[in-house]
């Protein structure tokens, strides 16, 4: 299939780019990064949020098959778990490479500060990863067994809680008014579910067996769910930003205006809202298009692009607002500036990890029976 060949080539090239980026990361450390001490988190943290969000959503979707035994989604559970594993690994790899001393990651497990939300979610995602790995194994050995069902049951609240925890990671920061809203732990699970559904739309649309008579209905149901969640997502964005602008607190207003009218306004309006939100709503709310694999697949990709930009628009703006206004000019140094654009090394690593995730998925499709489609009945 031409699409698969193209994806193989793109994934391999992207992975090679990533290997160069990782070479730079391990030889030059953080010196090749564009983030500094003021805008202290960059592309890799945004990508971590993006990928673990997809993983949490994909895990929840596996329950349609292994917990609720919905005939329409029978056979999709293994695919969901595979996607969860791949995206979880991509997310954790991003955040591991972001550490100043990545060789000390073991300290989080053996010497944690239990009050730290970061320590809690590292533990939580590790547990979730182990549950998903074991569940994935069981889908081959005992797909009808009770253990698999219970593991997936446990993973649902865990995935929801961890998604909320990622929101709380930012939300507990009283120093950053843009983050310090009660909305964050609430909206992140919604984003995760929406991301998980989007990746399923993409994969089902492009890779599921077209002979499966259920496919159009599967896509329609996921499409309707996507429309609902996109409307909720847009409502959250509107509620958050309009409330902040109305309240008029300078630190908050500055961050919101950075998103809406700053140098990367086009990423928000065109990427996050138009392509990532309004376009999928317009397309997927039409049953004729929602049932079509290619339309569904592309809209899944559009939603994911929107969420990737959304994660960046959550992380960066809060950090580009000075905690004390005069800090902007207090000390002159490239690492002490309130602006940021990812460096070549950062892009290379993220492109590479994405490419490797894609390659892992394609190889999984080739060597493992991830697609468990049903044949059309005579």
């Amino acid at each position, binding site marked *: 299939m031409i699409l698969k060949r193209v994806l193989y080539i793109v994934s391999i090239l992207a992975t090679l780019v990533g290997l160069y980026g990782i070479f730079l990361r391990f030889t030059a*450390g*953080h*010196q090749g*990064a564009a983030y*500094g*001490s*003021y805008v*202290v*988190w960059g592309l890799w943290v945004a990508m971590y949020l993006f990928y673990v969000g997809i993983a949490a959503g994909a895990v929840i979707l596996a329950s349609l098959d292994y917990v609720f035994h919905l005939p329409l989604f029978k056979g999709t559970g293994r695919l969901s778990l595979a996607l969860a594993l791949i995206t979880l690994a991509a997310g954790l790899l991003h955040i591991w490479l*972001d*550490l*100043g*001393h*990545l060789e*000390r*990651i073991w*300290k*989080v497990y053996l*010497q*944690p*500060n239990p*009050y*730290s*939300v*970061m*320590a809690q979610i*590292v533990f939580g995602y590790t547990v979730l990863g182990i549950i998903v790995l074991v569940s994935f194994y069981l889908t081959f050995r005992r797909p009808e067994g009770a253990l698999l069902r219970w593991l997936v049951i446990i993973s649902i609240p865990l995935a929801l809680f961890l998604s909320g925890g990622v929101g709380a*990671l930012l939300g*507990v*920061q*009283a*120093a*950053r008014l843009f983050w310090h809203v009660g909305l964050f732990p609430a909206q992140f699970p919604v984003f995760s579910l929406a991301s998980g559904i989007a990746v399923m739309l993409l994969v089902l649309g492009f890779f599921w067996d077209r002979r499966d008579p259920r496919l159009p209905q599967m896509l329609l149901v996921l499409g309707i769910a996507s429309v609902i969640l996109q409307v909720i997502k847009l409502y959250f964005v509107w509620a958050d930003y309009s409330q902040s602008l109305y309240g008029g607190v300078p630190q908050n207003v500055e961050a919101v205006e950075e998103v809406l009218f700053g140098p990367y306004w086009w990423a928000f309006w065109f990427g996050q809202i138009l392509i990532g939100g309004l376009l999928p709503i317009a397309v997927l709310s039409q049953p004729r298009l929602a049932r079509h694999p290619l339309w569904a697949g592309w809209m899944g990709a559009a939603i994911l692009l929107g969420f990737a930009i959304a994660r960046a628009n959550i992380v960066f703006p*809060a*950090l580009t607002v*000075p*905690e*004390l*206004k*005069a*800090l902007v*000019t*207090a*000390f002159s*140094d*490239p*690492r*002490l500036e309130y602006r940021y654009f990812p460096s070549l090394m950062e892009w290379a690593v993220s492109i590479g990890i994405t490419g490797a995730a894609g390659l892992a998925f394609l190889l999984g499709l080739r060597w493992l029976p991830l697609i468990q489609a049903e044949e059309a009945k005579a």
Partner: protein
Amino acid sequence: MAEPDIILRLQDDLKRALQKPVQERRWVMVIDLRKCVGCSACTIACIAENKLPPGVVYRPVLDEEFGTYPNVTRRFIPRPCMQCDRPLCTPVCPVGATYKGPEGVVEINYEQCIGCRYCITACPYAARTFDFGDYYTRGTAEMAGVVVGQTQASVYERAANFEYGNPWPRRGDASPIGNVRKCHFCLHRVHAGMLPSCVTTCIGRATYFGDANDPDSLVSDLIALPGVIRLKEDLGTNPRVYYIF
């Protein structure tokens, strides 16, 4: 007859405080903004004392301008770490690498810090910076001889600083490279009976340091003055750096 240098009184206060058990000391800093001229000597003294690399600064001086011409005024505000009594940075650290020490200074264990920089996002004063492993001498010319040139000049850069009483030579990607760093009230100097570097360097004698638990100390008198404020008090951080306006 000229008054004795206020530093002498601060040194006496310090000597007295060092005779007390560690947990009975309460180090605070008072900065008199009426005297600060914005020379940034304290910034440079701190960089020299702690051998800070590019991108790391513990005590920048904020320069604020008010009003419109011709009614313009300027104010200079040195901003060290506030050593908050309720620090927002310590609870977020995933490995407990940063903590409030017994004397009230918020310290960082360089060997424990994993460099996630979560604490930097937590600080409302931007008091923490990250050591990216940069060098001032990187990219400079190499020259023959034993005095000038990148190799020779970098010997000083790579020599150890003595933060927290331990030697920290700069090599490879060993700590404090890859760690978060911040002002610690020059604890290594204080424990050796010396005032923090910014205090002794200030040309306007605008910065004071001492034990607020000592009713005879200068800082105890100063923090009781009516015109004293602390930055962002509404966050409940309870800073230990006071400003006289």
